[in-house]
């Protein structure tokens, strides 16, 4: 068992060292990875002065909030619809599975071609539409895990007592699956905040609809500045926080 502990220790080292290094560097006054110039919050202050970053942050939050709201409603309905069906429908389950396995780049170019063909002007709303697609699939998958321990008799009981469909949904089904809905929407929110390729292709030209990941990509690709470590730390800690909350809501079910 000693070997087991050591092995897990190494695995967690492998998983967390890159993240820890990045966080440490964000406080490094010298700004380069090779030498430690002392502790400083300089790069964080620079971050808040940067108009481009603030603008991208606002865009990202708009996209994530709206796409999460839409996907949570649609995804939950979809999950309930699939689970309440008496017999499994492989066609529907397959369709819902597609957004989770299709390569991002393929989904991105498909949407770009589709929007171009319809002569849509690209912008934030085309990113939102695209993000809703994969968020529906993830919300649906998480909500469906809540049905693993779901007692279908309580729905029958509700009908027997004279409740209609909508009353049963609001008073019986929804309270049982609600932790899953919350966990699913938090996850959708982080996915949307982090998503790069699809946003990159469907944002259209110009910098008006640049999101945070798009900005990070261009910072990494064309001249790394030390600010990026601070920005990365910020985003990593934010996602971790959301996941902790999400995990509390959906106790016992490990996030996919």
């Amino acid at each position, binding site marked *: 068992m000693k070997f087991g502990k050591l092995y897990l220790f190494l695995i967690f080292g492998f998983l967390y060292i890159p993240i820890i290094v990045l966080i440490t560097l964000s406080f490094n006054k010298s700004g380069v990875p090779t030498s430690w110039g002392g502790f400083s919050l300089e790069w964080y202050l620079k971050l808040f002065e940067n108009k481009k970053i603030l603008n991208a942050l606002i865009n990202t939050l708009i996209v994530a909030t709206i796409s999460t709201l839409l996907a949570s409603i649609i995804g939950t309905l979809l999950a309930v*619809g699939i689970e309440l069906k008496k017999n499994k429908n492989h066609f529907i389950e397959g369709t819902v599975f597609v957004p989770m396995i299709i390569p991002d780049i393929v989904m991105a170019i498909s949407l770009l*071609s589709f929007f171009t063909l319809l002569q849509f002007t690209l912008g934030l709303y085309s990113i939102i539409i695209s993000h*809703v697609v994969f968020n529906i699939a993830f919300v649906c998958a998480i909500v469906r895990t809540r049905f693993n321990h779901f007692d279908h008799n309580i729905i029958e009981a509700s009908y027997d007592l004279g409740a209609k469909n909508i009353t049963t949904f609001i008073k019986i089904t929804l309270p049982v699956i609600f932790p899953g809905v919350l966990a699913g929407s938090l996850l959708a929110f982080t996915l949307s905040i982090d998503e790069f390729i699809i946003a990159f292709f469907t944002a259209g030209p110009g910098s008006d609809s640049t999101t945070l990941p798009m900005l990070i990509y261009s910072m990494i690709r064309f001249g790394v500045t030390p600010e990026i470590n601070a920005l990365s730390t910020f985003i990593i800690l934010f996602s971790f926080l959301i996941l902790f909350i999400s995990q509390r809501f959906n106790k016992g079910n490990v996030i996919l």
Partner: protein
Amino acid sequence: MVNFIKNNLLLIPGLIWITLFLILPCLLIISLSFFERGVYGGIEYNFNFQNYFRVLEFTYLKIIANSAKIAFLSGLFAVLIGYPAAYFIHKAPAKYQIALLFLVMLPFWSNYLIRTYAWMVLLNNQGLFNTLLIKLNIITEPLNILYTEFAVITGLVYNYLPFVILSIFSSISKLDRNLIEASKDLGGNSIKTFLLVTLPLTLPGVAAGFIFVFVLSIGNFITPDLLGGGKFLMIGNLIYDQFLSARDWPFGASLSFVLISIMLLLLFLQAYAVRKIS
């Protein structure tokens, strides 16, 4: 008809959204792949198979083969590294298991770009890895690790390892403990029991993990772009280039179709194998 709509009312918004904004665009891409690039980068609507003949040219076949190789190696390493991890987490006391799995999954849900960027910082010529090795007098000149296939594979394994561990773990935890007891009662030692009972019965989890890494790696764009240095290492970069620089959308579309076909083939094989076993 009214009954049908009533029964499927909850499914309609989701299915419409996915059909309209995913299935239709994918069908559009498939049909685009049979046309040609116009002189000024537009699309010329002459139906033919030219793009698919082009995919078969040596230059492109090589990139596709290379993508498959990198995806295969990433899947293999992820499974080899992930199996013992899943096994030891399963051996841990029950009260720690959920916490350990949560810690495994946590990095998986943080920003992919940032996780990949972290490896650029670690592996670059003046990066921590090289600095450490030089300080320890193991090497004198920095190793060129960044912008190699090795860096790309490392990045892919790093990014997808959490899921592989989870997938193998769930397979191990479904295992009937009585079978292991039975094997031990019949005189099998730990190693024999593992090789003859545990391993074969957990292969579905291993296969699921491997296919997951393979599928996500072969179509990956960010990792080969950032850690591979933007050379045309993998099919994802090639598709990206057709749409943004070369402006040959029909050819990019045919590459996408090839990519999806490879993925679907694998997923079908997996589903078939699972059905055959069970």
